[in-house]
Structures are given as structure tokens and as C-alpha cells.
């Protein structure tokens, strides 16, 4: 139980959806993951390593459950997370 304080034993189950360059680099539009990441920032670094994403977090925004979120937000079990590459609509 001392571990709980350091490592967060309750892994969060998340749905990730990818768009544009991130989708190409991840090789999928959607994936479900278990993560111990305590922030969206940490989550992106985890995924960046796994998928070799080329975009730094500084060029992205992030949304949780279809609303923009802060990078220090802590993802919760069941969250739907989308990292938003630079947009180019119009």
C-alpha cells in the first residue's frame, strides 16, 4: 500500500483516438490502453515513445471526452482522449 502513493496502482483504462499525422504514425485511428500516467502530458510522452510520434507536445492540444483539457489533467478510467495536431481546416 506504500506503493500506491508513488506509482498509482489503479491503472486507468482509456480510449485514444488519433487524427491526421498522429493517426498515420500510430497506424490506427483508435486504440484502448491501460496507463499509469498521472497527467495527459505524461501519457503523451508514453505514447510518443511507443509510436515514435514526431510532434512534440508543445505543438499539440489535448481533449478529454470531447472538450479541450489541460496538460496537467489526470486521466480517469473510461476517458476518451484525443491529442490534437496543428489544425488546418478551411
Amino acid at each position, binding site marked *: 500500500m506504500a506503493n500506491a502513493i508513488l506509482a498509482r496502482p489503479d491503472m486507468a483504462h482509456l480510449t485514444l*483516438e488519433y*487524427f*491526421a*499525422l498522429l*493517426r*498515420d504514425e500510430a497506424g490506427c485511428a483508435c486504440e484502448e490502453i491501460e496507463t499509469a500516467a498521472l497527467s495527459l502530458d505524461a501519457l503523451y510522452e508514453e505514447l510518443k515513445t511507443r509510436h515514435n510520434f514526431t510532434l512534440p507536445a*508543445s*505543438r499539440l*492540444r489535448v*481533449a478529454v471526452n*470531447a*472538450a*479541450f*483539457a*489541460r*496538460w496537467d489533467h489526470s486521466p480517469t478510467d473510461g476517458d476518451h482522449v*484525443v491529442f*490534437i*495536431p*496543428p*489544425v*488546418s*481546416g*478551411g
Partner: protein
Amino acid sequence: MSTFLLTEDPIDPAAFTLALRRDEAGGYCSFEGWVRNHSDGQAVLGLDYQAYLPLAETEALAVLSEAETRFDILAASCIHRIGTLAIGDMAVWIGVSAPHRDAAFTACRFVIDEIKRRVPIWKRERYASGHSEWIACHEIMDGS
């Protein structure tokens, strides 16, 4: 008041334009973005658009609502196409009605600029060279 539509079908603004009509409206400004055959000196064959639908809808409606608050307009709407587009296809349509032309022009310009800046829609250009590339229009936004 304002309507936003994301669609995989060719854009037909007729019904949307009609819905912007008001007896108090003296001016109507519209903007259409068309797929053009070149970009930064490269020959372009077509575009692919992706959108994060629920957030794109929320954010585009926020842009339209801001336009209605900031400018003396009566109504503003936008349609954005997604999927695979060819040269000449309409990618985006914006229409604004207002009592006077100045607000109609200013608000229409505001809407297209903000849509391009902050709505989660992405464009990939397919070049004659065979290469294709996701285009980045925004850089860092704010802290969020």
C-alpha cells in the same frame, strides 16, 4: 441562430443561405474555400480532410456564437466538408447576414479565420509528385 454542419457530401449551401434571411438584413457576405491546384509552388491533385467531429462541432458553434456577439450581425452559418476532395470542390462555406455590409464582411472574415485557427479539422495535400502531407496552420495556441 447559427448552424454548423460537417459533411462527407458535396456542400450545398442553398438551404443554409435561405435560413440566414431576415427582413432586417441589408447585407449578406459569404465565403467559399475551394480546392486549388497548387500550394506553395507544388502541383496539388486533391485534399483529404479529417475532423474530430464532436469537438469540431462544439468549437465551430463557439466561433459562430462569438461572431454574433462581437459584430452587429443577424445570423452566421458554416458548412465544412470532410473526406476526399478533388480540384474545384468546395471545402468550406460560410454565410453571414447583417443589417449593414460592414459587419457582414468583418464577421464572415472572422469566422473563416477562427475556423482555420482552432477547429479540429485537418487537411492533407496530395501532390502530383506522389507525396502527400498533413498541413499545419496553427502553432501553439494557449496553455490548455
